[in-house]
């Protein structure tokens, strides 16, 4: 299908390009609302005029809310795009980065650094990325050694096992951690949140996220080929092993980077790709930008809610799980629902 044919496709009776543009507008509107919504000076909107005349409001807007908004955008886009890649490559609509040891690996790496290596922000992020890759690698190798079941079943079993190993290690690290200084940091990994985001933290993950997302976006059309079996993909001109590895590496890179500052935020990587495929179909040329936009909108809305509705901050992971599970339930029970891959 050529680009011109693609642009003529329709979803729910509307041109897909129109829907994508509507999502872009929706994302911008949500971002603007998120920037102006909060609990300062009281619950509600912060007027642009106040930002201009109030020094605290000015600093809050530019030094807390803006980096936090950008971080939530990166988080949503990365998890959604990585989820789509995982689901397509492994031919399994129930897989997300968390199923293959990536999230648990990143959390274990971060906790290990906090407990034993001092926990500087850069070291924590570096080790989180390293262990995220290790989690994926172990899952992949273990799946190859399991001697029964199809590839998908083996991969899911291996992923569950590796995740459980890292979870056990995380539990041990929590036991050893200083409850006043280290344990709260580790607990943060389990619940997820963006309350400690500053410009310096955001900039530290930006290169990895940009590289990861760029590769995923540019190779989105190859995902259609790579989701086919090895022989078919090869006969259509793809180098399946090399290209799958590249896409997986890019997905894990972006995921690990955002997890390293936001902790474990569940359900985004599972539910958003489903939603994108529901709207745009299984063609990843459309589903990928759809996932990116929907992921961004979803996490920005959740994070703004998390920091606004109560006097204390609700952990982001709790809100994404709650909303994600509700949406998933609606999708699954909706009439005529089909899983497309």
């Amino acid at each position, binding site marked *: 299908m050529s680009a011109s044919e693609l642009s003529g496709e329709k979803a729910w009776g509307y041109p897909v390009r129109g829907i*994508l543009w509507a999502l872009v507008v929706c994302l911008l509107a949500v971002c603007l609302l998120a920037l102006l919504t909060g609990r*300062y000076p009281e619950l509600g909107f912060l007027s642009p005029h106040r930002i201009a005349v109030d020094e605290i409001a000015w600093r809050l807007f530019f030094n807390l809310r803006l980096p936090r908004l950008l971080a939530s955008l990166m988080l949503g886009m990365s998890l959604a795009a990585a989820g789509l890649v995982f689901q397509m490559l492994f031919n399994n609509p129930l897989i997300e980065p968390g199923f293959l040891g990536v999230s648990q690996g990143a959390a274990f790496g971060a906790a290990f650094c906090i407990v034993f290596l001092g926990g500087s922000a850069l070291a924590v992020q570096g080790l989180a990325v390293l262990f995220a890759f290790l989690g994926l690698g172990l899952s992949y190798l273990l799946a190859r050694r399991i001697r029964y079941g199809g590839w998908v079943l083996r991969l899911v079993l291996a992923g569950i096992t590796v995740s459980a190993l890292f979870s056990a290690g995380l539990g041990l690290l929590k036991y050893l951690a200083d409850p006043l200084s280290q344990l709260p940091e580790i607990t943060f990994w389990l619940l997820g949140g963006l309350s400690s985001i500053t410009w310096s933290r955001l*900039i530290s993950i930006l290169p990895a996220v940009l590289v990861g997302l760029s590769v995923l976006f540019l190779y989105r059309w190859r995902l259609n080929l790579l989701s086919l079996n090895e022989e078919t993909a090869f006969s259509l001109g793809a180098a399946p092993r090399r290209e799958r590895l590249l896409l997986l590496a890019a997905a894990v890179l972006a995921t690990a980077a955002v997890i390293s500052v936001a902790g474990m935020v569940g359900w985004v990587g599972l539910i958003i790709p489903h939603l994108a495929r529901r709207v745009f179909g299984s063609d990843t040329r459309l589903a990928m930008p759809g996932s990116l936009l929907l992921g961004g909108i979803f996490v920005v809305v959740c994070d703004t809610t998390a920091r606004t509705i109560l006097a204390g901050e609700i952990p982001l992971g709790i809100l994404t799980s709650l909303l994600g599970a509700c949406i998933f339930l609606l999708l699954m029970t909706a009439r005529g629902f089909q899983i497309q891959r």
Partner: protein
Amino acid sequence: MKINNCFYIILLSLLTAACSPPVQPPASPAADPAANVQPVETTPVEALEAIHITDALGREVILDAPPRRIAITGKALIMILDAAYMFPEAYSQIVAVGSAAQGSSNFVALIDPDFQEKALLQQDASAEQIAAVQPDLVILKSSLAETLGKPLDAVGIPVIFVDFETPDQYARDLQILGDVFQNPERARELTAFYQNRLEEIQAVMASVTGKPRTLLLYYTDRDGTIAFNVPPMSWMQTRLVELAGGEPVWSSANPGQGWTKVSLEQIAAWDADQIMIVSYTDNSSEVVARLVTDPQWQALRAVKQGRLSAFPGDFYSWDQPDARWILGLAWLAKRLHPGHFTELDITHQARDFYQRLYGLDPAFFDGKILPKLTGDLP
């Protein structure tokens, strides 16, 4: 516009925005009389000298003027708040506090008549929520430096970190509070109070021979499940046992850095000379009363010999790194070495403590605090 171009625009926007340095506010924001902004009344900056304070993390914090709107929040804030209220200035200068209750008790609410007017913050309040009360200084535990300190720095709100976890840190952190409240003389008085009480106990200890093998257990019945826990070696509870001339029997049992659950089998194996029960939610005396009727506990040597004790407390248990730790130390020393502390009257010590540290007269103590005393007090 193609999808590719749209994606590149979003990426470029992210890159441009994220690479911007932290934004500084305009030097003198345009004043607009129509603005619905009600700035907090503060002392004119130019009339006052800047204050330099070195906090528990060794950071030098420079304040343009003495703080007039102080917020104390975050986890474990009871230690900071109870120490801050030893300074008379705290009553007027603290404008926002987190939850200072442990169980159903809140000491500060009792002694500060204006407590209801202070802004109450959630224990996990974010920088934005703290900024909403417009503090000119926030005091936090140093363990919150990364998660809350940095965002507050980004908003431009000065933060002072303190610890208040060990006797040594009490001396240092009281000096820091003395700098904050511009009352170093009071800080010296308070430090001397703790130092004198500690030296009195240590002077008696010099003549004591033999260390009773002591077990301090934290009792919980959360979710209906009873559990006993021992503290790590670095915590105040263990330090109190050592300073009171006891030998902590659990020294090899807690490799972690938090409370560690132990079984009755292990408690029996330790066969301690003295067992002290701590509870933060229940009345420790009632807990001990229940334990002595338990057939399994009745088999323990310490219980048979009447050496199972309820650690005392009033609003908060005295074993914690709260201001009352010095009372807990005196009680523990007398409990472990009763023959050496025959003249020590704990109730009198407590009355003196509240009078000298919080300015509460004996009538207030007898009416409001004495009825709250729990634990095995003679």
